[in-house]
């Protein structure tokens, strides 16, 4: 018996990810639906180092999805712990210049949160507006394994996840004294896609009503902004 795992990625990168796909195929005792790959040009980053704790969690989640109507469509599994952008935890001296200790801690928190955001996956599902069904499905994952649920919840499409990014940018923009960094942070905040910005109460940007493809596009844009924010804050002099 074969089962399909929904993984969409850039066909150009297929060779790089073949080994990992093979692991998934073995794990699920099924096969990939490679037909789906030909029609899409979406980036996916999977390194061979993924055979770690996160790799196990991803396997468990995809396995759970396959065994439960397979509603998840992965676009990206998130950055690995050993990727350069995640590994470096040093903040530039000029970012912290003149700041009180408490504010320095806030900057550090924001910095770590940005990294945590990029570690999260991007996936859509087949529930669309059926929130009741999605909630039942989520409860099942939570009951089975809270760690897998935690990864599931770190989906960058989750409103709480990207909402936090905008709030952190607001806090940094207000707290950081260095004018150059402050201005660059303001610019990054201004570039957040309109669909993800906190809207007005009578209508708002209606993120939840967007098509999945538009949500993914917006989330990839904000992910790029977060990468820029990390690069702006981090000290990579070593």
């Amino acid at each position, binding site marked *: 018996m074969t089962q399909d795992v929904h993984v969409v990625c850039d066909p150009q990168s297929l060779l790089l990810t073949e080994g990992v796909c093979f692991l998934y195929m073995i794990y699920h005792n099924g096969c990939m639906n490679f037909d789906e790959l030909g029609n899409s040009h979406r980036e996916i980053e999977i390194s061979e180092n993924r055979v770690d704790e996160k790799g196990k969690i991803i396997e468990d989640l995809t396995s759970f999805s396959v065994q439960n109507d397979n509603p998840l469509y992965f676009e990206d599994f998130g950055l690995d712990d050993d990727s350069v952008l995640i590994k470096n935890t040093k903040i530039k001296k000029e970012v912290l210049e003149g700041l009180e200790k408490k504010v320095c801690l*806030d900057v550090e*928190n924001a910095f770590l*949160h940005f990294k*945590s955001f990029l570690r999260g996956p991007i996936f859509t599902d087949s529930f669309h*507006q059926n*929130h009741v069904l999605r*909630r039942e499905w*989520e*409860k099942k994952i*939570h009951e089975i394994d*809270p760690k897998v*649920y935690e990864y599931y*919840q770190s989906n960058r499409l*989750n*409103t*709480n*996840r*990207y*909402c*936090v990014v*905008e*709030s*952190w940018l*607001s*806090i940094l923009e*207000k*707290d950081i004294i260095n004018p150059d960094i402050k201005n660059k942070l303001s610019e990054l905040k201004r570039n957040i896609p309109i669909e*993800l*910005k*906190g*809207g*007005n*109460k*009578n*209508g*708002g*940007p*209606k*993120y*939840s*009503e967007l098509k999945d493809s538009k949500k993914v596009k917006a989330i990839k844009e904000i992910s790029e902004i977060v990468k820029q924010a990390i690069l702006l804050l981090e000290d990579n002099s070593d």
Partner: protein
Amino acid sequence: MNSSVVSILVVDDELSFCEVLKIGLQDEGYRCNISDGGAKAIKLLREEKFDLVVLDIRFVSESIDGFDVLKFIKKEYPKTKVIMMTAFSSEEGIWNEINAKKFGAEDFIRKPFALEMLLRDIKQVLENPPTIPKREEVSVSTNSATVVGEPGPIALIDAEHPL
């Protein structure tokens, strides 16, 4: 109201969301505590006095939801003001908003929202809580899409009109 003495509880099952709101609120001079679930929120409410609670509707790992916490607050601590929040889609969001108001929440905010917007809402609720007219004082005009009552007519938004 002097914000330096105002105590706020933020309740959401996403801890990182609570934490960033806490920092934003503390920066504005509020005292803030957080809870990543409804049961813990009720425990904190019993232990500490809060002037306002920013409350999510759904907690995935618990059998109680935000409405249960809201009912508890309004029964046990009627002076505590509540702003409910949710990320649900428009239709579900409207019903949640109706229920939130029905159970006594002072305000309702939909995610995604900017920190500045929440701060504005909090300030407004604390300084100028909405006066909810009695049922007999309100009438809905479908022709002009307004709710008529004290303190004056309120225009319905497009999504509310069909309801």
